[in-house]
């Protein structure tokens, strides 16, 4: 797959299997000198972000999202994924990024954290890439604090700066807690 070519959306099992196979392969390889992480890279408008792949359960084409009353603006509603009702978080809204007009190719990245499962709405899933831990840097200081606090680091992939989101920080954030009314 070319670096900037959108990854084909696969169904739950295919993507999950691919990720698991890649992880198993990594584990069985002769000891490496450097620890690596597998990242799922995606686009939000013109920006690129990534999540650690182990947290990702599946990538789905977004079905119709059912709106709920009285939720935070980034909680877009719920979807039914294989008979499981999952909350949809608009990552652009959550990170305070401008929304783009074309929403026709929206995808959901379904992630699990502790007992919660949520689906992040993104514009495009790019690829799954393995990067060395050492290639992860602190988020640059010029980033708005409101956004940088959700990043565990940044890395440069094919000339693009990619913000690696920290799923634990997002799920435990005040914004998420407030959305629950806690």
């Amino acid at each position: 797959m070319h670096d900037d070519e959108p990854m084909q959306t696969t169904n739950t099992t295919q993507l999950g299997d691919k990720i698991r196979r890649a992880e198993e392969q990594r584990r069985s390889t002769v000891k490496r000198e450097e620890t690596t992480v597998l990242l799922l890279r995606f686009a939000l408008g013109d920006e690129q972000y990534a999540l650690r792949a182990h947290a990702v359960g599946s990538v789905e084409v977004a079905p119709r999202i059912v709106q709920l009353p009285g939720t935070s603006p980034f909680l877009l509603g719920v979807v039914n994924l294989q008979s499981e009702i999952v909350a949809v978080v608009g990552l652009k809204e959550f990170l305070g990024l401008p929304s783009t007009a074309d929403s026709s190719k929206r995808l959901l990245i379904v992630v699990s954290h502790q007992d919660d499962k949520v689906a992040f709405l993104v514009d495009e899933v790019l690829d799954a890439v393995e990067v060395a831990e050492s290639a992860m840097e602190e988020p640059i200081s010029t980033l708005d604090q409101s956004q940088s606090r959700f990043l565990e680091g940044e890395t440069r992939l094919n000339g693009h700066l990619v913000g690696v989101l920290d799923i634990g920080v997002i799920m435990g954030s005040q914004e998420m807690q407030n959305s629950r009314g806690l």
Partner: protein
Amino acid sequence: MDSESLSVLLFNSQEIRCAAEVEPVVSVTEARELRPCSLEVSCVVGMMPHDQEWVPVVDLGARWGSGSPQSSRSFMILVRVRDQLVGFLVSECTGVVSLALDQLFSLPRVLAHSRHERCVCAVAQIDDDMLIVIEWDSILTPDEQERLAKWHRTETACTA
């Protein structure tokens, strides 16, 4: 009614598609002009006469924080809520269906305590479509219901 199913009224409040139990519903009519109401509940937008009494009217869009004008609510659902009649202004009523229990799903944990979670009790799947299932009794807070009951006791009979 079959104990394993729930008969629900389908309606929309702006973009939000809803279902609620049909049993407490007294009538569904086109929205009418309302009289000002002294009841101090933010989402109560007026009152209307019904069977010799005044009935407060709740704008469901306003209750849920939707900003579009009240004129977009075209239908009035008159419901008996804890022995009080309350009118609910909604955008559209689309019918009555019977939902089997296996068509109903709980809200995800992450939404389980959202601001209006108390009135959204489930999500329903109807063929390829989904909507939220709400409880009439929980649209107004206990405090608002208490004020409503007090208002009913003091309000004189409708002479309109």
